[in-house]
């Protein structure tokens, strides 16, 4: 396209018209409008907003919060330890260990967590006692409390995911690193601890953080076996006063608080193990 300006015409006082973006203004306005509409709807809704803070700090709610945190942390912690073990088995030279790891991941990742929790909780129906011959015998229904059943259901499922995450992390480290560690006389255990795991962490931490956030929310499934976590706590409170939405909103607020804190923790962990 021929220009009616020549290079010589480009002086300092030349008027330059910036590109306009009318659609940005339009779409921005639409989004604000939708938010305002939702806000208005919430304000108009038949919710006793003034009761929500009370439910937020209700003793039963706080007990549910504590139980949720304990369950999520124990299940995730156990899953990380088990996951490392299963990942090492998966990468082991022993074919039996390798096959066991594949089967373990297939089973515990393949079944819905809710189903696993229900199976553990009802274990007493098929096994009256849990025993290791000549060591101990205990009645199943004494051991398999709601907490233990939820811990097993959530933890074992998560350990299968952790095994895959840890395996991906370990195999992401250059084999040359292991060789260099061997060449200065490191034993396999020291090599793993000092050279491979610290580097694998960069790959392991981000998905583990995501999984932990999922775990926090997943504890809600323990409500079906009457474990007093946040949702069960909310139901307990509302069964007395029938303020169902108000108690659920209070529980929702606690989930958001926990997830936000977990995200912040993840951010700092990632920075600690980040690239140099």
């Amino acid at each position, binding site marked *: 396209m021929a220009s009616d300006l020549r290079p010589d015409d480009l002086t300092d006082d030349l008027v330059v018209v910036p590109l306009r973006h009318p659609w940005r203004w339009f779409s921005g306005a639409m989004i604000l409008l939708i938010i305002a509409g939702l806000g208005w709807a919430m304000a108009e809704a038949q919710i006793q907003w003034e009761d929500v803070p009370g439910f937020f700090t209700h003793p039963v709610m706080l007990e549910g919060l504590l139980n949720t945190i304990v369950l999520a942390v124990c299940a995730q912690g156990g899953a990380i330890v088990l996951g490392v073990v299963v990942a090492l088995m998966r990468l082991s030279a022993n074919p039996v260990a390798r096959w066991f790891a594949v089967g373990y991941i297939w089973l515990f990742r393949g079944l819905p967590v809710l189903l696993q929790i229900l199976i553990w909780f009802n274990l007493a129906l098929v096994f009256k006692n849990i025993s290791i011959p000549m060591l101990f015998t205990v009645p199943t229904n004494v051991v398999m409390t709601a907490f233990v059943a939820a811990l097993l259901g959530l933890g074992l499922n998560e350990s299968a995911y952790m095994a895959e995450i840890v395996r991906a992390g370990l195999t992401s480290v250059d084999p040359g690193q292991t060789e260099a560690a061997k*060449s*200065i006389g*490191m034993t396999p255990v*020291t090599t793993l601890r000092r050279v491979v795991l610290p580097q694998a962490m960069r790959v392991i931490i981000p998905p583990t953080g995501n999984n932990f956030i999922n775990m926090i929310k997943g504890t809600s499934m323990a409500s079906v076996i009457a474990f007093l976590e946040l949702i069960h706590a909310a139901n307990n409170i509302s069964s007395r006063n029938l303020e169902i939405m108000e108690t659920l909103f209070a529980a929702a607020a606690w989930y958001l608080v926990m997830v936000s804190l977990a995200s912040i923790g993840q951010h700092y962990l990632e920075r600690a193990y980040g690239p140099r």
Partner: protein
Amino acid sequence: MALVEAVGVRKSFGHTEVLRGIDMTVDRGEVVCLLGPSGAGKSTFLRCVNHLETIDAGRIWVDGVPVGFRASGGKLFELREHEVARQRRDVGMVFQRFNLFPHRTALENVMEGPVQVLRRDRAEVRAESLALLERVGLAEKAASYPAQLSGGQQQRVAIARALAMKPKLMLFDEPTSALDPELVGEVLDVMTSLARDGMTMIVVTHEIGFARSVADRVVFLVDGAVVETGTPADVLDNPRQPRTQQFLAKVL
């Protein structure tokens, strides 16, 4: 007795035989360069000396000890991995791709072996490691991470890391092949000074000039077998075997 003695060393990867019966001796204080076309098995042989590869047949002795085995009652018992680790303490290795630990500084890389493997006193090791970095000309880079160093600098840190274990023998696996041409000299200088100080060295290299000026002996390998061996003057200037002549005609 020679420091390294290899007899009839054989190694296959799947159906490919990479080493077809290698015999080799390296005396104390001797510098031996392994030359030959790529795929000749030079690096594989070097890795066998450090038991990074297990050999299928034959035997390698380092300082009178069979590599990867324990001699007892006229039998050889294969060692566990942590026992092999103990044998490797006396043998330093320098890799083509440096393989420095990226999450540790240059100084921490050098200190890692003596502190974690030999369980020696940190302060003492620190002083020694700084002296080693000084020796390879990198005292001012002690606090740098590998990613902040050039290839030549990384390789010199890697040499210092190997020396920190006070090895009897140093293995160099194409130490300058991954370097930009202008950085090769600084690494070869460090290796030359190490040779002058009497270190026993086996060097897999394509640097004919280095072999000529530093090696006591060169060994020429083709297709997993030793074709010719002798002083650099003999093998490099008056090669007798046609395969050696062909190879040298291409690289010189």
